């Protein structure tokens, strides 16, 4: 996505190597966390409190750098960063935190996609993704905090309903805009200028 001069100048081999190096870096980060949590007396809570966040920040910066200066493959970097970050954050945690972290990650991805995309249909898809992330959250709480009640399930059902309605109306709006403007590009929707 980022249009940089390095994209044109780097060869495919360099880009691949950069991506690979990035994968190795992330794997190293994951290994550090894994070693910390599995070492004797190294329960998750005993870990220095911000290590995982610093590690995640580190791999993010490394990813941006490799992407910007060595033109590593954009999608691959994103996938590796997300998977690595997810592992760093969840290894050694109880299941509930795992689910909640996944939910947060999916929500963040959906948010990024919603802001970033120019295609209106893709924006709708991102919104669906965010709603689903919320659903995971609700069901997780229903499972681990209140198994006897079904409030989480009920809210999830209502969210499904709203999501379906939102998809229908959203697509209808997109369709109608497309009829008028012959585009689904979000940047060109200037109907509400005044």
């Amino acid at each position: 996505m980022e249009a940089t001069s390095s994209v044109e100048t780097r060869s495919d081999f360099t880009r691949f190597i950069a991506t690979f190096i990035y994968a190795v870096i992330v794997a190293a980060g994951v290994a550090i966390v894994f070693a910390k949590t599995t070492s004797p007396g190294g329960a998750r809570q005993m870990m220095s409190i911000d290590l995982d966040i610093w590690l995640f920040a580190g791999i993010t910066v490394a990813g941006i750098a490799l992407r910007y200066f060595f033109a590593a493959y954009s999608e691959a970097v994103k996938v590796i960063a997300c998977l690595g970050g997810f592992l760093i954050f969840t290894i050694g945690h109880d299941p509930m935190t795992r689910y909640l972290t996944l939910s947060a990650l999916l929500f963040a991805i959906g948010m990024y996609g919603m802001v970033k995309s120019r295609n209106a249909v893709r924006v709708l898809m991102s919104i669906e993704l965010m709603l689903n992330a919320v659903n995971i959250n609700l069901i997780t709480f229903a499972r681990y905090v209140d198994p006897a009640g079904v409030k989480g399930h009920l809210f999830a059902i209502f969210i499904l309903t709203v999501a379906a309605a939102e998809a229908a109306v959203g697509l209808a709006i997109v369709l109608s805009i497309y009829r008028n403007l012959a585009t689904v590009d979000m940047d060109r929707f200037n109907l509400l200028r005044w």
Partner: protein
Amino acid sequence: MEFVNVQELVSTGVAEALAFYFIAALAITLSIGVISDKNVIRAGFLLIGVFGGISGLFFLLQAQFIALAQVMIYAVGITLVVVIALMLTNPRLQNEEAEEEAIASSEPALLKFLDSIRNGFPGLVAWIAFVTVYMAIRSEHWEQSTQTIGEDNIAVIGRALTTDYSLPFEFASVLLLAALIGAIMLAKAEKVEDTDTPREGIESGSN
């Protein structure tokens, strides 16, 4: 000889963790595909994969009803999304995007740098949101219950929907009806001659 309860096998320890990580990896990878795939139709199909993974997570969380509803609604619903995306997107639009990117890449260095910072802004926001939410999750300690969700979960849901939650249920039905009518009204072609000749487009509208 005792039989193995498959659900118990899944919900205890290692097997569940393995299944969780597998599904999570799938969902994360596919959702990144959704937001970054060049082809929006392909992105739609990947989104179905994400939803399938999430419904698998619901199965792991013993929420069978939600999992199945997820499959049923999204398998058909998202197919619709894809179909509409299919009808709306033509190769010409994608080419335009590529052209604009090419124009953007030929700007002077400083502008380009500023541009890339601007481009990176959504990523930054998402990153901060994720880390913040994670820190909140980590710092909070919920009292976790050890019991599992009962088999008659669906009956409980049904009863709750028709007794305690009947008002939101009705609201949801009204919302759906309104959405249905609204969607039909919006999507209906007004006149025959309007359908194939779009009104004055962006070119003339952007002056």
